[in-house]
């Protein structure tokens, strides 16, 4: 047992070791431009393969690991902190893949940061570790710690690659609002504890099941439901679901493009997974209470995100608002409970790929260190660099949910879940909004393909044609290829994620 006990927390250990290693060696060597990213990249790759190993290991030894590490089968007051199941393994693979791609996509950023490069890499690793911790926790306090580890690292990252004053503003805004949301989340945990007397995710579920019918002093339904609602609010903030989304456009636009991919896609994966773990594992018996709440959140997110995105003139702000809508689409499947998890996973995985790809294109086109990415940068892109434009077109149509792109299958999946849970109206609202969403995705396509490039006002100021090369080119190509392939043959991924439900 001893020798394999490392596996469940393996990814975290590797990432923290990597982070410390980078920081230490940066201090010890005291040198400027170095490719600290290599250590970060290696740590993330190892973490990814450890998650994969977890996935494979669970094939036959599932019970062993759960008894050794967590709570599922142990008694409700157990101190188990960590659960290793296929759910967390899949979340790990996704998070580390996203973080890795976000790093590779801006490979040359780290050396350019000089001495601070090492700190940047360490922060990315810490954020990835925190995000993964959110998905492996079977204890609410540990979940909160993972959330905070990731959040604090990301607050710093938001303002780290600073080129404009906007970065400060966006980092501060992110920090203040984020802390507020974390506090709400923590208060929710406290109330759940007050309601159930248990902090373990599987334990509190057991208590609710046990006392579900008879009121006892320990178990107050009102307190419990308030707690659940506050936890949902906290996580809704992190995944930028409306009405807790206001920070997203400003923060995305203010932060350097290079760091937004992790900030958006990584947090979405972890936040949605944590929300699923909490709701499906701890409170499945209260689904009739929280499902309507999520349905409202989903509709609000879809509508607010779509309407908000229509008026934008900046690609990053547009993607932020569309991200709000996509959070809504994912929440749509939540109303089906654990049954909907396959849909959520598929949507989450494909959306994360498209989002990382799209933000990487933004860094290629508008520069990795700049904050804003005005539409003008994309005008006539097809004539300047056809491949980049084609890839961005794939991401836009994919997010828009056009058939033959992965986003379409995701939409069918989540709407199917909602409909089978008797939320037909939710599917209708979502579908109409999805088509309205095409309006702004198509606008990017129109700009890139149908219009001539904006002429530079003075010679020499014209933006150089972005090239699909280096790490960014690789990431964009891989994401675009996967978006198309998973749109045409989504079945392997669907079959895969079907094993990772709670």
């Amino acid at each position, binding site marked *: 047992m001893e020798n394999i006990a490392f596996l469940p927390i393996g990814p975290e250990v590797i990432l923290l070791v990597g982070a410390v290693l980078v920081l230490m060696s940066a201090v010890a060597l005291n040198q400027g431009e170095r490719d600290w990213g290599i250590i970060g990249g290696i740590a993330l790759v190892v973490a990814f393969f450890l998650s994969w190993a977890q996935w494979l290991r669970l094939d036959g030894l599932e019970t062993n690991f759960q008894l050794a590490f967590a709570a599922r089968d142990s008694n409700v007051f157990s101190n188990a902190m960590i659960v290793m199941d296929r759910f967390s393994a899949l979340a790990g693979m996704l998070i580390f893949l996203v973080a890795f791609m976000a790093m590779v996509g801006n490979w040359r950023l780290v050396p350019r940061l000089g001495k601070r490069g090492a700190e940047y890499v360490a922060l990315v690793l810490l954020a990835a570790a925190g995000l993964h911790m959110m998905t492996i926790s079977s204890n609410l306090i540990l979940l909160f710690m993972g959330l905070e580890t990731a959040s604090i690292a990301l607050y710093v990252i938001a303002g780290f690659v600073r080129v404009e004053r906007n970065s400060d503003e966006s980092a501060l805004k992110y920090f203040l609002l984020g802390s507020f949301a974390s506090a709400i989340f923590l208060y929710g945990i406290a109330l759940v504890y007050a309601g159930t007397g248990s902090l373990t995710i599987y334990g509190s579920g057991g208590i609710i099941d046990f006392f579900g019918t008879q009121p006892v002093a320990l178990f107050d339904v009102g307190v419990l439901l308030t707690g659940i609602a506050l936890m949902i609010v906290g996580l809704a903030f992190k995944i930028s679901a409306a009405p807790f989304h206001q920070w997203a456009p400003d923060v995305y636009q203010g932060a350097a493009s290079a760091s937004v991919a992790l900030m958006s896609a990584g947090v979405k994966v972890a936040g949605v997974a944590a929300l699923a773990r909490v709701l499906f594992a701890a409170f499945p018996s209260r689904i009739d209470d929280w499902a309507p709440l999520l349905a409202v959140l989903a509709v609000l997110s879809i509508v607010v995100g779509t309407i908000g995105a229509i008026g934008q003139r900046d690609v990053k702000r547009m993607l932020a608002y569309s991200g709000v809508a996509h959070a809504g689409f994912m929440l749509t499947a939540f109303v089906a409970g654990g049954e909907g998890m396959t849909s959520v996973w598929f949507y989450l995985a494909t959306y994360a790929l498209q989002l990382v790809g799209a933000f990487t294109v933004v860094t290629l086109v508008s520069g990795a260190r700049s904050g804003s990415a005005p539409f003008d940068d994309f005008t006539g892109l097809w004539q300047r660099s056809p491949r980049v434009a084609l890839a961005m077109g794939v991401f836009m149509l994919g997010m828009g949910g*056009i058939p033959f792109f992965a986003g*379409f299958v995701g939409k*069918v999946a989540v*709407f199917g879940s909602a409909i*089978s849970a008797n939320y037909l109206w939710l599917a209708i609202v979502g579908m109409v909004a999805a088509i309205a969403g*095409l309006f702004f995705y198509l606008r990017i396509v129109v700009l890139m393909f149908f219009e001539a490039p904006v002429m530079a006002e003075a010679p020499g100021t014209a933006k150089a044609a972005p090239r699909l090369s280096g790490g960014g080119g690789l990431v964009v190509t891989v994401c675009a290829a996967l978006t198309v392939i998973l749109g045409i043959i989504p*079945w392997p991924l669907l*079959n895969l994620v079907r094993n990772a439900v709670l």
Partner: protein
Amino acid sequence: MFPTLALMVLIPVLGAVVVGLVPKRRSELIFPLALVVSFLPLAVVGYVVWEFEVGQPGYQFTQQVLWYEPWGVSWNVGVDGISLLLLALTAVLFPVSIAASRSIEKNQKMYMVAMLLLETGMLGVFVALDLLLFFVFFEITLVPMYLLIGIWGSGNKVYAAVKFFLYTALGSALMLVGIVWLAVISGTFDFRAMLDIPLTSSQQGWLFLAFGVAFAVKVPIFPFHTWLPDAHTEAPTAGSVLLAGVLLKLGTYGFVRFNLTLFPDAAVRFAPWLAALAVVGIIYGAAVAIVQPDVKRLIAYSSVSHLGFIILGIFAMTSQGLTGGVIQMVNHGLSTGALFLLVGMIYDRRHTRMISDYGGVAKVMPVFAGLFLFSVFASAGLPGLNGFIGEFKILLGSYLRFPAAAVLAATGVILAAVYLLWAYERVFTGPIVHKENEKLFDLNAREVLIIAPLAVLMLFLGVYPKPALDRIEPAVAEVIERIEDATDFTAPEFGMPEDLAGGGE
């Protein structure tokens, strides 16, 4: 069994990949390569037509491969008499359109790739027997068409492209919800399995509407038609040909294949409304076509009118009407396709589509004028040419069910003669008013060769439509039988006592 249909659907995609890989310095290869590729599906369709067993109801060349069990999604294809003819139409129109696109210079490679992807989508729609598969093909045709209009169109092309895309996508949004809902009810996306699932009357009504709006926008049925004149007019020639020839048929085909068979009860209930809208479309489209100054716009509005006929025939739900509707889909594709091609040819010479810029063209371009007149006659339904067969059968069939509608629709035939012949008169006859037109040269051999197959088919279907009708009728009989089994509706036939006809209302 050999996956003939899968091969047919896949060839254009593979061709698109090959064309996409042609290096820049060998760009002269792009056009011949695309042309050759577009002939391959025609060959496969030819084989399917040849091997198709006439008189046998049900689907042939079927193939079903389960893709994802929890959803019941499968690669599920087959052809019956209805889809067979539309497949043939599609397979004929693509080589013709590609041959007519030789003058495209701006990024020819992407143009050809878009054309070939479009062909896959359009062929796929007509063979798909799985609703998700159908939707994928139905919707994917939007993207290449959107690019064709937006990049290679003329005039207000971006507006037309975006309008086309959003209109049709919005229309099909609810169909997707409907499809998923239907799949949740029946546990599968398999169309043939769904036929056995009993639906309540209100479910049928809502699903009929969800599917119906998608198809109505595509057809387009009045008042959903406003995207059509813009898209048809601004699209490049090949785009217009395929829009009118095939894309609109996706809607009418959808009505026949899905709305009538899956929701027969609702279809019987909604039929009078659709017949009424069809008649409005016939007369409105014709009336607006008369006053158009732009030839392409005129033909576009004539499509609104002609498609009204098809819808009227379909929702008459009589054997005659449905058969007429199906064969008229093919006829309209041939004659309107030919007209758009011809307009494109003169546009290449004069770069104007305004009727007032022409006059007396017959003097300098006699062959062109002859072919144009031929297509005009076919479109107006002159006996002996294909349009007559379809319109006659539709009027016959709809008279049995909706006599008033049939009488009103018949005025559409007269109006069609008015707008088409009047336009012909203004463009081709009389003296040459504009000096520029004196130098116009007649069609060359290549251009005649492009029109020739369509002209031959128009004549053939006009004088000897029996082979086509023989294939359509068993499939249509099956649709009507399905409606009669599921409802107390009885399709009226000639010689049937009055009190039996049109029952169930």
